[in-house]
């Protein structure tokens, strides 16, 4: 189950009309592609994508899962949205509540294990390996963790473990963290047990809305076998403008340890059809990623141009991430910025994000003067 319903309000105008997992990334991807590709590459056949906030673009993108090869005979992607039942309609009020509301879907699959993911992280992970650990530990719940620098630990949910990697204590954003094992929001549950716990909680009054706030503490208190799975590798939460910009800049380097060129673990996305990218006589492109449909007559340095981006002559783009379909006029200067999908940047505009990463929203038009008559 991929929880893709978050509002992503820290991304400001980039998530005004689009759910965070559907935000473009890295030239030809959207954030959720990494999680969906992990599922496909890990051999997971049935994926539910829980959506809620501004789901149109996300639903279009995920479609029936065909782009990830998840539309086979025994597999499928199902979009799960809030619905009205006989007891009335309900928005998903938290991560655990979203699972509870979709028990009918999960029961249909009748799985032994439930993998809960969030759709807004950039990483590659073999969930099967995590499941093996879960089985070997005979755990009831396994939480994937990442070692973070100690001074940053207070920003995360921290798992304190014993020498067997069993979780003894969970602290949400602790002031004085006792360890540096941060929860990645990736859980494997024994489904029958979780189902029982959720049903019993909702039959009483202590509704378990959230995995971090309610379910994990209750598991620990109830003496369930809860283990960590240690993940080492590239992992990035792209929940803020700064982290989204930073992750994109890191993505340019072909040597980065996410290794998107690894053919044995491909990152899939919904492919659109566009002609090859065209670099004119006046173009100069260094240390950058460019994809299909782009037209470049300007100077591009350390930047990403997504599908169908146009950059006219005399413009200079440095350290920036340009989302699909954006059109950059003549003699424009863009430095350290994120330009939204379909944005139009008029001639001679200067966007300087030296102080704070510059953001132009989706379809926003800036620096264009309308001719009268």
């Amino acid at each position: 189950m991929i929880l893709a319903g978050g509002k992503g309000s820290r991304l400001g105008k980039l998530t005004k009309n689009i759910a965070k997992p559907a935000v473009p990334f890295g030239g030809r991807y959207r954030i959720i592609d990494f999680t969906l590709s992990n599922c496909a590459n890990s051999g997971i056949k049935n994926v539910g994508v829980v959506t809620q906030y501004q789901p149109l673009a996300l639903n279009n993108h995920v479609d029936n899962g065909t782009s990830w090869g998840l539309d086979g005979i025994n597999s499928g992607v199902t979009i799960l949205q809030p619905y009205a039942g006989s007891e009335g309609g309900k928005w998903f009020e938290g991560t655990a509540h979203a699972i509870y509301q979709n028990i009918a879907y999960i029961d249909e699959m009748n799985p032994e294990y439930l993998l809960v993911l969030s759709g807004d992280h950039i990483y590659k992970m073999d969930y099967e390996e995590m499941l093996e650990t879960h089985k070997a530990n005979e755990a009831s719940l396994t939480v994937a963790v990442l070692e973070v620098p100690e001074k940053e630990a207070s920003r995360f949910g921290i798992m304190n473990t014993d020498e067997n990697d069993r979780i003894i204590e969970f602290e949400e954003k602790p002031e004085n963290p006792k360890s540096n094992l941060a929860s990645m929001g990736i859980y494997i549950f024994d489904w029958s047990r979780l189902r029982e716990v959720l049903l019993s909680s909702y039959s009483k009054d202590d509704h378990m809305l959230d995995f971090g706030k309610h379910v994990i503490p209750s598991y620990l208190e109830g003496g369930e076998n809860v283990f960590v799975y240690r993940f080492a590798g590239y992992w990035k939460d792209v929940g803020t403008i700064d982290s989204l910009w930073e992750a994109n800049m890191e993505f340019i380097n072909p040597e980065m340890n996410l290794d998107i060129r690894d053919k044995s673990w491909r990152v899939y996305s919904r492919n659109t059809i566009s002609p090859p990218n065209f670099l004119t006589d006046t173009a100069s492109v260094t240390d950058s990623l460019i994809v299909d449909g782009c037209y470049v007559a300007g100077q591009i340095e350390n930047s990403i141009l997504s599908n169908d981006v146009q950059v006219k002559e005399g413009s200079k783009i440095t350290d920036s991430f340009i989302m699909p379909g954006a059109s950059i006029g003549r003699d424009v200067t863009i430095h350290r910025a994120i330009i939204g999908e379909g944005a139009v940047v008029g001639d001679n505009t200067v966007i300087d994000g030296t102080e704070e990463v510059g953001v132009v929203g989706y379809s926003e038009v800036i620096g264009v003067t309308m001719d009268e008559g």
Partner: protein
Amino acid sequence: MRANKICAVLGNIQRYNALLPLTNERPLATLPFACKYRLIDFPLSSIVNANINTVYMIFNEGETQSVFDHIGGGKEWNLDGVHNRFFIHLYQDFLKLKAHNQSYYRPLIDYLEKSKSEYTVYMSSKMICNIDLRAVLKIHQQQNNEMTVVYKKVESEKICQTDAVLSLTDNGQITEVRPYMEHLQTSEQENLCMDIYIVQTDWLIRELKEGQQEGTPADIQDFLRKKIHTVKSSTYEHTGYLSNIFDINSYYNASLDMLNQQKFSSLLYSNQKIYTKLKNEVPTYYSESSEVNNSQFATGCIIEGKVEGSSISRGTVIDKGTEIIDSIIMPSAKICAGARVQNAILDKEVVVDPGVQIIGTRENPVVIEKYQHVTNDILANGVAVGDIER
């Protein structure tokens, strides 16, 4: 337009020796073009863009591997739906039936009858264009003739020996259909028959049934060409981009045409999209040392050298210190450090060793065959070692 108003026949059996070695292991139809397309994408896209939902394709025996690889289930062209289908038939099966004095058009006639369509369009992959078949149909309906022939005025050097040329009156009536012969060339421009025909389906079925009694050609293109003059035909002049592919030079020139923005836009950015097989490739990376001008790139490449006036297909790796000039690089080539490739066509998965020079001329480009590993310099006739700057 009603979905089954037109059905399509796509013929891909003509062979052109002057295209060897590019067509050693593939038909003309699957020759790569403009970084990420194959020639067949153009007629196929024109067909599906006209809302035609059924296509009958004819190929030579032994040439279908790359065709199936490319077309797959037909999904990218939306030919895999409940109502949308494609069929592939081998030319040699028509010939076998003919040799046994059987009704050799029968498989095609079956198709035409089952399509329940009023009109049939015939196309081939040799003429690269993006044509609005609905506009041609409109003219066909207005003229109310059995057949409408599409042509374009082209310079005579863009015509090959096996092409047909039309003589027309001022109001577009065909007065003569003749094979193109260079020595008889009368004017600078000729009306090249593009071998795109729209005909009445019931008329075609009738003619095929009669024809197989009389031993008419099993090649449908040939069959239709011979009909141009025997029935009332109207003409449609194609005004958009056209490239006629029949030898290395015409292929090379057409590929370089795509670096001309006007021609590129006319073919690939018209209001009708060109569809091709989708590949899940990563973005193309241009390193700090890359120097790229007036060139085209598909995704999945790593570019660290100098590229000028060239077309670089998917998954190509161009190392530091290399120079690629006025060249066509097909998918998954690897050009190692310090190599120089000029006026050349590199087929798929070619490897060029460090420092190796492959130099052709504008009129005589060097062609490197698929899977070749080039370890020594290759110079085209007329290029002297002294011409090369080291």
